[in-house]
């Protein structure tokens, strides 16, 4: 054990010598810009984090943030339908975008030669997006196809959706990011316009440029193209707070499947909470790597599941600590649950040794490095820290925050959240009776 200890001491602050350097600037209209220079490849990653997601929706328009993400590629005033993608690809670039419960993020990757074009196109769509009824109808079909793929024809997706809807009953995290099927069919042009006005203001956005750029050129282009766009009122505050859970909730999903699946959720605070570093370490202790407690117990020793994943997700409001498991053939969810609860109780009652905690720290730090390998990884990391942790520069104190967590904190935090009455259990039960005609 001494060798392991000395090794961990050696690793204590591996980030200290490798701070991520960023230049920041805020435009007159309120858009914050983060710039990270990396001239290793002649390319740029340009990310826009709009602080609007499914938490800003309401019943009837669920999924509209995500739908809107799609619409942002369907034409604006200067660059019409298809031109954003056509121009981008013809200039050597590509793009994607994602929507979560909290944010909508646009991700552009391109050779440096396309830098000014990207500013021109991004500012065009923030300022003057088009709303063509024909295109809206076609894109509705695309989003419905996405829902069919990621939820309706995917056991993980359907159980995950049901779990959130059961664990969270009041806060908007209740509904899925992709939206309920009936809302996808029903939202209107007015809903879309209202959503655009609510979320797509420059003062509601953080822009991150990472790669073969200089701060001066990024700031100059932002001043030219984006600064003239006026600020607007930010989205209304999300007022609803999820009430405390009063007892365990259990749900089941029956559908044709080869194997059962089990998911579990415990309410936890948001990313900025002081308990988050301990929760991150608990996630690593329980589910990261094959030596993690749950992998060792459930996958290797008892051979009850094929895999186990878990942890918290970044969130602006209190959310869930999840566990997901694919149950083995011939095993039952009940057996898995029993073993999992034993492990959680063990963590809360007996805690961890300093060695095991060091292992978890090293895993998180190594994972953090892996996020810094690419300009895209760095752009994503900086934007997420700015939005969810309150400031990009917290990326440079990850090691010290983890280091401040002691074994007693792990025990305290595990005991605080992993309680029966704070838990929701979702099981997918294979139901292989002949299909009903009612299926969609």
């Amino acid at each position, binding site marked *: 054990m001494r060798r392991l200890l000395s090794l961990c001491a050696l690793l204590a602050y591996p980030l200290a010598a490798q701070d991520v350097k960023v230049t920041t600037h805020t435009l007159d209209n309120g858009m914050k810009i983060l710039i990270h220079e990396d001239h290793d490849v002649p390319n740029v990653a340009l990310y826009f984090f709009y602080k609007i997601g499914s938490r800003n929706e309401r019943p009837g328009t669920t999924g509209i943030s995500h739908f809107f993400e799609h619409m942002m590629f369907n034409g604006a005033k200067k660059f019409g339908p298809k031109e954003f993608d056509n121009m981008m690809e013809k200039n050597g670039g590509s793009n994607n975008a994602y929507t979560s419960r909290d944010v909508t993020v646009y991700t552009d990757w391109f050779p440096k030669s396309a830098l000014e074009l990207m500013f021109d196109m991004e500012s065009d769509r923030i300022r003057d997006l088009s709303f063509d009824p024909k295109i809206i109808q076609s894109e509705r079909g695309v989003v419905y196809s996405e829902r069919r793929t990621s939820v309706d024809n995917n056991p993980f997706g359907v159980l995950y959706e049901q779990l959130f809807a059961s664990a969270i009953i009041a806060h908007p995290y209740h509904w899925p*990011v992709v939206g309920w099927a009936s809302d996808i069919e029903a939202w209107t042009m007015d809903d879309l316009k209202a959503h655009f006005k609510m979320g797509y203001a420059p003062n509601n956005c953080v822009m991150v440029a990472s790669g073969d750029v200089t701060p001066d050129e990024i700031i100059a282009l932002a001043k030219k193209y984006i600064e003239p766009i006026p600020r607007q009122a930010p989205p209304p505050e999300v007022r609803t707070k999820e009430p405390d859970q009063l007892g365990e909730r259990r749900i089941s999903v029956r559908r044709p499947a080869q194997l059962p699946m089990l998911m579990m959720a415990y309410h936890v605070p948001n990313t900025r909470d002081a308990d988050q570093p301990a929760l991150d370490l608990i996630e690593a202790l329980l589910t990261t790597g094959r030596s993690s407690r749950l992998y060792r117990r459930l996958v290797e020793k008892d051979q009850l599941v*094929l895999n186990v994943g878990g942890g918290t997700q970044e969130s602006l409001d209190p959310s869930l600590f999840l566990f997901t498991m694919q149950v083995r053939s011939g095993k039952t969810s009940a057996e898995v649950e029993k073993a999992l609860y034993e492990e959680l109780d063990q963590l809360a009652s007996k805690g961890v040794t300093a060695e095991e905690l060091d292992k978890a720290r090293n895993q998180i730090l190594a994972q953090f490095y892996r996020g810094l390998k690419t300009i895209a990884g760095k752009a994503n990391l900086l934007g997420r820290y700015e939005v969810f942790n309150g400031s990009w520069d917290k990326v440079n104190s990850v090691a010290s925050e983890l280091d401040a967590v002691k074994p007693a904190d792990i025990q305290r935090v595990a005991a605080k959240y992993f309680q029966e009455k704070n838990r929701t259990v979702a099981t997918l039960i294979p139901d292989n009776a002949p299909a009903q005609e009612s299926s969609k």
Partner: protein
Amino acid sequence: MNRRLIVSLLLAAACLQGQAKLPPFTKQTLPNGATLILLKKPDVPLVSVRAIFRGGVEAESANLSGIAAVTAELVRRGTPTRTSDQVSLDVDSIGATLLGGSDRQASFLATEYMARTQDRALEIFSDVLLHPSFPEPEVKKVLAQAADRLRSIKDNPGAAIGRYFEAFYYPASHPYHRSGSVTEESLTRLTRDEILAFHKKNYTGKNLILIAAGDFDPAKLGPALVKIVSELPAGSEFQPAKVAAPKFDSARLLLVDKPDATQTYFRIAMPGIERTSRDRVPLMVINTLFGGRFTSMLNDALRVNSGLTYGAGCVVEQDRHTGSIFISTYTRTDTTQKAIDMALEVLKKLSEQGIDAAQLASAKAYIKGGFPTQRLETADQLANVLGDLELYGLNKGEIDDYFSRIDAVSLEEANTIARKYFREVNLQFCLLGNASKIQDSVRKYAPKMKVLAIKDAGFEPPAF
């Protein structure tokens, strides 16, 4: 929710400013036949080391399907001095990763570690590389897990169709058919002796390509790796079998019935190329336009213009033996026929009308623009590229002259290639969906059609 699935459809890809080049690296052949490649890239304090053994699925004998993957997983599951759990604990304690796997051409063992843990990481890596003991209980466990993994694939139609397609497109005598002949039951019949024999035959010095890329001092890491690798017996070198490319004398259609599916997943395939084909670069240019990017003809028609799907594309397989070119997408059950018709129309249009100069220029810029970040940015990407060059016997000109070879593709050559490969002749259709609702309407696509139930064991299609 992503706007689109991030799928690496193509070796797409770099810089408009000039030719992308491989960073300097060293390569040496050791007395036991192993190849050692070192590439220093110190921008992030991580090191990627991978041992690639030529062979993989191609080295399996027909009655031992699945053994390459199982062996690769078992390599890290115990040595005379470490149990499987101890290997995992030692790896995790230093924040490293250790992964064994296999594909059509090779088996591999890969680790990535933080630079300052090098001594410890190499000690673990060399132990599992040189001294795997294949404990019997671990063999049993891995085989049972692999069987359940096959079962779980069938719960994900997007993944399942890939297995069915390989078994359908490649004839039983072809090594790429193998994934289809593995069943939940056949896996559990593999024995420890068979696994030991496979390992002994294939994990040899003569088959080994060892690549290290990342933040290290070559003067220190080079000798350490030489010492490790030299301990492997030279053994024999993998000799690829002579395999005839699949040929089809008529269109065929395999329909996999999943009664609860609310959408149909489908692939439409035609004969393609081998990795070293001279047609590869112009074909990648054409396929970029046809189905290799967001604005491609297929995605434009099926997604952007009609909303029939979340995504449509076309993949050119690039392996040692001649592979397929397949259109791939999915659509809701009642638009199955419409989507297939539309995909066929797009194919017909390409083969009849070809592309124009503006399209050619756009495809070239797209491939080059993304190349540095897709293939050359990180140590593990570079290790992958170097491994591919070595596996296929290519030299570094493959990368260093890539842009000039793309630039050299003329419009005439591109259209010749389009006509040569993208042909509406004897197409091979593989569909997965609700057969009771679609089988009558899809019958028209092929004179030979078979239906297979997803609940049946394995992925093997009925005889056509």
